C-alpha cells in the first residue's frame, strides 16, 4: 500500500478506537427502540420489527467520515456498551438470536428492488403470510431508504469538502445511490452493500455472530470484473478491504468470515493478507482446508496463523461436510458451508442456525448419575452403560422440553423481516426464518466438558475397578467434598493416559461417549422441520466453570473445565500431537455445531520455513485423521506471565530454550522470568 493509503488506514484505526469510547449512538438507538417498540406491542412481532427498522432508516443519524471508503456506522451496537449498562435496550425490543449467515451473494446478485418485487409476489391469503409479505417489503424498503440517506449525506459532505476528499465523497454518494435499489456494479459497491446488510441485520436483531459466510466466493466476480476492466488493482482492493475490516470492528464480536474451500482466488489471498496486516479483532476469519486447497492459500493461511492474533480458525472440509450431511443437509448445500460465530458450520445463506440455542453439561450428567442413582457397580462396563442410559433419559425428559420452550420463544419473539428476506427460501415460502421459512432450520445443542468427563470415567475405572484402591462410595465422597485427601487429588490429576495424552482407554471412551451423545441429539428434532445438531463446546465455558463442582479427574471446585474437544488443564503428559490424536477419536463427523480444538505454540516454534513444516504437519495430520477444527494460539510474553501465575491453566505450554522446547510451567521461576523478559524484548 502506498504512503497515502497507509495513512488513511492508520487514521481510520485511530478513529475506531476513539469511537469505541463514545456511547452516544448506542444511547440514541436505545431511546429510539423504546419509543417505537413500546408503542406497538399489540402488533405481530414481524410487523413490530419492520416498523422499528423503518424508524431506524428514517431517523437514525447518518454520517460519512473523511477518509472512509466504506460508510455506515454500527457504533450503535457496540456490545461493550450494553455490558456497561450505559445504553440499556428496552424490554419491548426483542431483537433476535443472531448466529446466522444470510445469503449475501443473492442480495448482491438481485439488488434490493428485485427483492422487494419478489416479496410482493408472495401469494397467500392467510393472515400470517399477509403480515409477513408486508413486513418483508417494509423492511427491504427501509433498507433501501437508509442507503439512500447515506447517498444524500455523502453528497452533502462532498459539497462541504475540497479537493480529493470532495471527489471521494462524491464517488461514495454515487456508490450508495447505485446500490440503494440496483445490484452493485463494482467491487467497491458490492463491498459497501455487504456492509450495509451487516449494519441493518445488527439494527434488527441486536444479536451476536451475524456472520458473512463465504465472502471471497460471493465477491470474487466483482473483483475479477473490475480487475479485468482496469478500474481496480490489488492495492486498491486491499485498501477497500481494510476499510471494510475496520468498519466491522464496530459490530458484534463474532462476525465470522469464511475463506477458501476450493477455488481460492487472488481475492481470497488478499483477505488473508489484510487480516494479517491489520491485526484487528473483527471479522473473525475462518478458512476451509480440503483436498483442493491451493498451495498459495495454505501458505497465506500459515502467515495469518503466525501473525499471532489467534486467527484464522481452520476447518476440515471433509469432516464438516460429513457432519452437515449427518444433520440432514443435502450434499450440495453441505459443500457450500460457511462458519457462524466461532466454530459452527451452516449451509451458507440457507439456514437459520440458532447455533447456541441449547446447551448441556456432560460432567453434570455424570455427577448427577453418580450421586443420584443406586449404582450397578459389578464392572466398569456396567457402570458406564448405566451412565449412558441415565444420560439419554435426562436428555429426553429434561433437556428436550427445555429446548422446545426455547424454540417456542424463538417463534414468538424473533421473526425478523429483513434477515428473512435476505435468507434463501423465505421469499418463496412467505415464512420468516424463525417460522421455518428458510431452507433449513437448525437448533444447536452445545455440550460442555468432554475431556473432563472422559478423564473422570478413566479415574473411576482405574482407582475403583482396576487398582481397587478405594470403593466407589468412598471415592465419590472425596469428590463431593472437593478432595480432602491431597494425595488422592494429586494422583487423579497426574494420572497417566488421560484424554489428550493419547491414552487408549480414554480415546475409546471419548469416541463412544461423543458418538452416543451426538446421535442422541441428532435423533430428536426440536419440532417439525427443526433439526437438532450437536457441538462439543460452550461459548462461555469459562464463566460456567466458576461454579462447577469437583470432578473425579482431580479437578477441584471452580477450576476450568476442558474446553471444546481439548484436553483438561489437569491432563498431564500431553503434547500437541497427543492432544490431536485424542481429539481425532471424537465423533467429528457428527457434530456440525462445532468441535473446537485450540493449540498453544510458542512464537519461536512457528518461525520461518521450519514453522511452516510444523504447522502444516499438525494441520494436515489432524485433518487427515478426521479432525473438525483447529486454531493456534501463538504465545508471547503476556501468556508466559499468566502461565507463571497460573501454572495449572497452562500445563501444556511449550517454550523454546536454545534448541529445544520445554514445558514452561516446569521451569524454575528465574528461568521463567528470563524467558518472559526475552519474549518482551523480542530478543
Amino acid at each position, binding site marked *: 500500500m502506498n504512503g497515502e493509503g497507509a495513512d488513511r488506514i492508520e487514521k481510520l484505526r485511530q478513529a475506531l478506537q476513539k469511537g469505541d469510547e463514545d456511547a452516544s449512538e448506542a444511547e440514541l438507538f436505545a431511546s429510539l427502540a423504546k419509543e417505537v417498540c413500546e408503542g406497538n406491542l399489540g402488533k405481530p412481532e414481524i410487523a413490530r420489527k419492520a416498523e422499528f427498522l423503518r424508524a431506524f432508516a428514517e431517523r437514525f443519524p447518518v454520517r460519512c467520515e473523511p477518509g472512509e471508503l466504506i460508510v455506515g456506522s454500527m457504533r450503535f451496537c457496540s456490545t461493550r456498551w450494553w455490558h456497561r449498562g450505559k445504553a440499556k435496550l428496552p424490554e419491548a425490543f426483542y431483537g433476535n438470536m443472531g448466529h446466522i449467515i444470510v445469503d449475501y451473494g443473492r442480495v448482491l446478485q438481485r439488488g434490493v428492488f428485485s427483492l422487494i418485487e419478489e416479496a410482493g409476489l408472495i401469494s397467500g391469503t392467510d393472515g400470517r403470510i399477509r403480515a409477513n409479505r408486508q413486513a418483508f417489503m417494509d423492511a427491504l424498503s427501509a433498507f433501501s431508504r437508509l442507503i439512500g440517506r447515506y447517498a444524500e449525506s455523502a453528497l452533502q459532505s462532498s459539497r462541504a469538502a475540497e479537493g480529493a476528499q470532495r471527489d471521494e465523497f462524491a464517488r461514495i454518494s454515487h456508490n450508495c445511490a447505485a446500490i440503494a435499489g440496483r445490484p452493485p456494479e463494482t467491487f467497491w459497491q458490492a463491498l459497501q452493500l455487504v456492509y450495509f446488510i451487516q449494519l441493518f441485520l445488527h439494527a434488527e436483531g441486536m444479536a451476536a455472530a451475524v456472520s458473512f459466510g463465504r465472502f471471497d466466493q460471493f465477491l470474487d466476480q466483482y473483483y475479477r470484473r473490475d480487475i479485468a476492466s482496469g478500474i481496480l488493482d490489488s492495492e486498491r482492493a486491499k485498501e477497500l478491504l481494510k476499510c471494510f475490516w475496520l468498519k466491522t470492528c464496530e459490530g458484534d464480536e463474532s462476525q465470522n468470515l469464511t475463506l477458501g474451500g476450493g477455488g481460492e482466488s487472488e481475492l481470497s489471498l488478499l483477505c488473508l493478507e489484510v487480516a494479517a496486516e491489520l491485526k484487528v479483532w473483527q471479522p473473525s476469519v475462518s478458512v476451509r482446508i480440503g483436498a483442493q486447497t491451493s498451495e498459495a492459500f495454505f501458505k497465506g493461511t500459515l502467515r495469518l496463523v503466525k501473525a499471532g492474533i489467534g486467527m484464522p480458525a481452520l476447518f476440515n472440509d471433509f469432516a464438516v461436510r460429513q457432519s452437515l450431511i449427518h444433520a440432514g443437509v443435502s450434499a450440495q448445500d453441505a459443500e457450500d458451508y460457511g462458519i457462524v460465530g466461532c466454530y459452527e458450520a451452516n449451509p451458507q445463506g440457507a439456514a437459520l442456525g440458532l447455533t447456541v440455542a441449547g446447551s448441556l453439561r456432560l460432567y453434570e450428567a455424570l455427577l448427577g448419575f453418580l450421586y443420584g442413582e443406586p449404582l450397578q457397580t459389578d464392572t466398569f462396563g456396567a457402570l458406564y452403560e448405566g451412565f449412558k442410559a441415565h444420560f439419554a433419559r435426562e436428555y429426553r425428559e429434561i433437556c428436550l422440553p427445555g429446548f422446545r420452550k426455547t424454540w417456542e420463544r424463538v417463534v414468538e419473539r424473533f421473526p425478523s423481516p429483513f434477515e428473512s428476506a435476505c435468507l434463501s427460501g423465505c421469499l418463496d415460502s412467505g415464512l420468516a426464518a424463525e417460522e421455518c421459512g428458510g431452507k433449513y432450520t437448525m437448533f444447536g445443542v452445545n455440550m460442555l466438558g468432554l475431556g473432563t468427563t472422559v478423564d473422570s470415567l478413566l479415574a473411576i475405572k482405574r482407582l475403583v475397578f482396576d487398582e481397587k484402591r478405594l470403593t466407589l462410595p468412598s471415592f465419590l465422597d472425596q469428590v463431593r467434598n472437593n478432595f480432602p485427601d491431597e494425595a488422592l487429588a494429586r494422583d487423579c490429576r497426574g494420572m497417566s493416559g488421560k484424554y489428550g495424552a493419547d491414552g487408549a482407554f480414554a480415546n475409546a471412551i471419548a469416541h463412544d461417549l461423543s458418538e452416543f451423545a451426538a446421535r442422541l441429539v441428532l435423533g430428536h428434532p426440536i419440532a417439525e422441520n427443526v433439526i437438532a445438531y450437536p457441538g462439543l463446546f460452550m461459548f462461555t465455558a469459562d464463566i460456567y466453570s466458576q461454579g462447577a463442582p469437583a470432578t473425579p479427574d482431580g479437578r477441584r471446585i471452580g477450576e476450568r473445565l476442558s474446553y471444546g474437544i481439548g484436553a483438561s488443564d489437569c491432563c498431564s503428559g500431553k503434547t500437541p*500431537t497427543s492432544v490431536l490424536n485424542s481429539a481425532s477419536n471424537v465423533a467429528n463427523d457428527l457434530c456440525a455445531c462445532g468441535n473446537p480444538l485450540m493449540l498453544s505454540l510458542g512464537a519461536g516454534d512457528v518461525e520461518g520455513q521450519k514453522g511452516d*513444516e*510444523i504447522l502444516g504437519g499438525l494441520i494436515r495430520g489432524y485433518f487427515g485423521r478426521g479432525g473438525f477444527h483447529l486454531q493456534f494460539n501463538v504465545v508471547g510474553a503476556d501468556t508466559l506471565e499468566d502461565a507463571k501465575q497460573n501454572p495449572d491453566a497452562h500445563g501444556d505450554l511449550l517454550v523454546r530454550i536454545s534448541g529445544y*522446547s520445554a514445558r514452561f510451567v516446569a521451569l524454575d521461576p528465574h528461568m521463567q522470568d528470563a524467558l518472559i523478559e526475552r519474549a518482551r524484548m523480542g*530478543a
Partner: protein
Amino acid sequence: MESGESGVIFDIQRFSIHDGPGIRTTVFLKGCPLGCVWCHNPESKAGEPEIAYYAEKCALCAACVGLCPSRCHEMAGGAHVFRREGCARCGRCAQGCHAGAMALIGREITAGEAIAEVLKDEVFYSHSGGGLTLSGGEPFFQGAFALALLRLAKERNLHACAETCGAVPWETLRRAAEFTDIFLYDVKETSAERHRACTGAANGAILSNLEKLDAHGARIVLRCPIVPGLNDREDHFAALGALAGRLRGVERVDIEPYHPLGLSKAAAIGKPQLYEGRSLTGKDVSAEWARKVERHTDKPVAVS
C-alpha cells in the same frame, strides 16, 4: 514389534521439533562416554536408572521413609534427608511420592515398545517431513539397542535422525549409517587439548569418525554447543567453519548456545555441575557466534 532388544531410556518426547526436520519423536537413551563440564542433560550420563530428588517439591509427608527398603530416607528436624549411599535405585520412593519430589530417571524398554510409541505420531511425520530422532546421552553408548531402534524405524519407513557425540566405535556408526537419514553430530571443541579438559576425552577419534562418516556418504548436521568462557573463541569458530566447509556431507552448522537448565537437574541427582554459568545466552550474542562461523564456510549456520 519384532525386536526384543532392550535398553534404558529416560524419555520419549513427542512433538520434538528441534532435532531434525519436521515434527519428530525423540527417544532419549541413557549413558554417555563423555563428561562435558556444562552437560545440558546430566541425568543422561549414567547408563543405569537413577533417583532424582527435587527438594523444593517435597511436601514432607514422609511416605518415602516407610517405602524405602534401604532406609535412605529420613525425617530429621522437620526436614527430609535423602542419603544416596546405599540407595539401590529401586524407585519405590518415586512411585509413592505424590508431590513428585522423588523421581526414577530411566526405564528399561524393548526397541519394539519404543517404536510402537513413536509410531503414534506417524501421520504428523508424513505431513511435516519428520520422524524418529535418537538422542541421549549418547545413543550409541547402547549400540545394539540404538541400532535395533534405527532398523525398526527404517522397516516402517520412518525418517530417522541420530544425535551422536562421536565418541563411539566406528563400526557402530558405520552400521547405523545404513538406517540413518541424518546424523546430528556434536563437535564440542576443535582444540584437542581443550576438548580433553572440557569433556574428559580426546577428540581424535571423534573427528576421525566424523571424517569417515562423511566419506561414507552420510548426511550430517554439525551441532556445536557454545559455552561462554570455554569455547566462544575465534579460533574455534574458524575451525568449525573450516571443518563444515571441508566435509561434503555437512549440510548445516547448528550453534547451540549454552543454557543453565542442566544445573538444577544435576543438583537433583546429586552430581553437581562443574561449569556453573547461570544466565541464558542472549539472541544477539548467539547470532554473533553464528556469524563468526559463517565467515569461514559457505554452509548455512543456524542458531538452534
